[in-house]
């Protein structure tokens, strides 16, 4: 069995920042990712980030990704790409299908003193009639195609969902040369930031609020060729007679994301159900789960955005390194307090407040579950 001090699962913003912090403190870190290149979803975010200068506002995600890769290399982080973590087992064992691509690979077990899971999230689907038809895909999938693979997923796209993902990806599909035939939103108003919505509106994309997709119709080749949308009433029920057909070969679904938590469930970490984030693992202010030595960061803890993922990753990396003795308790605490303050600043405003509350709820639930154990 291979031995590593810290294994980080996922080389996205949370995983990379955790690896950089821990390796910077002196720990020997192995970071594992199933993709061919590290950076997670940062490399598809070609728009400029919001926030304060401490959070690199005005910088594109893709450039933040490049800076982080350089830093990880500088700090000596070991990186396994094209490698899938298939399980976490008692005794801090990490099962990995190791390989540079999906066609070759051996199964190896790595024993880690500390494990940091930053596995990200997966896209939600909307199950309208025909949702499995080729041409229907996640909004993130469409974004990956144009911004990472530089291939258009289709010529004419209907976007379902007007959160920031739906809005930003609609714009980026247009930047790549696709036509956006319509933006469809079930709620009576746009979900994401007005600044992103305004770009879509200025480009002349028809926006259908209080509408959803009723079905898609394939052509002879099996691909989407028409999308039928329908109006919704205040109770989100279809209004008969309001169907409308849109010609399109692609549907992108931007209906939110859910945390990727299977590895933590395998380890029997304590979970809670939170109305904002769904079923998520409990963690404390060190980002440590109910399993000692197992930390989490980023979307795995509840879906937010790249900046909060970066900050949580830093906390997890500092905590794991400190637990191994690479940082004094005082130094680790001072640095973590600073980061928690920056996180609180990121979780302000109408969009951030409910995430701040959710995070506080989860920290409290962790304390309660520990208190419960102590009382036994």
């Amino acid at each position, binding site marked *: 069995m291979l031995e590593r001090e810290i294994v980080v699962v996922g080389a996205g913003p949370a995983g990379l920042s955790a690896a950089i912090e821990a390796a910077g403190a002196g720990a020997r870190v192995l970071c594992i990712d*199933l*993709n*061919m290149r590290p950076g997670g979803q940062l490399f598809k975010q*070609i728009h400029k980030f919001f926030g304060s200068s401490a959070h690199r506002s005005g910088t*594109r995600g*893709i450039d933040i990704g490049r800076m982080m890769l350089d830093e990880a290399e500088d700090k000596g982080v070991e990186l396994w790409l*094209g490698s*899938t973590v298939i399980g976490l087992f008692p005794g801090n064992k990490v099962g990995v299908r190791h390989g540079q*691509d*999906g*066609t070759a690979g051996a199964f190896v077990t790595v024993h880690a003193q500390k494990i940091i899971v930053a596995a990200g999230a*997966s*896209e939600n689907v909307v199950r309208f009639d025909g949702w*499995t*038809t*080729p*041409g*229907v*895909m*996640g909004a*993130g*999938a*469409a974004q*990956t*195609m*144009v*911004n990472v*693979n*530089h*291939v*258009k*997923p*289709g*010529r004419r796209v209907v976007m379902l969902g007007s959160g920031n993902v739906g809005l930003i990806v609609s714009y980026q599909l247009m*930047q*790549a*040369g696709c036509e956006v035939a319509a933006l469809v939103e079930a709620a009576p108003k746009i979900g994401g930031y007005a600044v992103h919505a305004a770009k879509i509106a200025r480009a002349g994309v028809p926006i259908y609020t209080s509408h959803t997709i009723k079905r898609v119709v394939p052509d002879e*080749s*099996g*691909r989407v060729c028409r999308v039928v949308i329908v109006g919704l009433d205040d109770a989100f029920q279809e209004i008969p007679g309001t169907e409308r057909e849109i010609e399109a070969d692609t549907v992108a679904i931007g209906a939110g994301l859910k945390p*990727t938590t299977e590895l933590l469930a395998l380890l029997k970490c304590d979970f809670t159900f939170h109305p904002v984030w769904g079923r998520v693992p409990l963690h404390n202010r060190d980002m440590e789960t109910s399993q000692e030595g197992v930390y989490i960061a980023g979307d795995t803890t509840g879906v937010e955005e790249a900046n909060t993922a970066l900050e949580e990753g830093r906390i997890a990396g500092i905590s794991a390194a400190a637990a191994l003795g690479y940082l004094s308790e005082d130094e680790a605490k001072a640095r973590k307090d600073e980061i928690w303050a920056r996180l609180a600043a990121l979780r302000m405003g109408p969009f951030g407040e409910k995430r701040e509350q959710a995070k506080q709820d989860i920290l409290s639930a962790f304390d309660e579950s520990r208190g419960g154990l102590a009382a036994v």
Partner: protein
Amino acid sequence: MCMRVENHVVLDTAPSGRLVTITVDGQPVEAFEGEAILAALLAKGIIINRYTVKKQEPRGLFCGIGQCTDCAMIVDGKPNVRTCITPVRAGMVIETQNGLGKAGA
């Protein structure tokens, strides 16, 4: 039909790998070495990667990041390869997968 992104306002979309030939269902297809197999096929307008086990329904690109397995194909004789996270190499033989991709299935 070419679906590649060109002249992008933010991105440099010049391919980084060399142009190679792969075989897709018996036909030669040009692709860039190192790009995702799925992307190479999509660039040529090929969107169906497999047919389902029970109802033989077509499936193609859905998540694009190795999670959903809708883009699984037979690569060099090996079934269930996630083409969205598997890079192209010169001479690869790719087949549309029926069901579980076993002989006779």
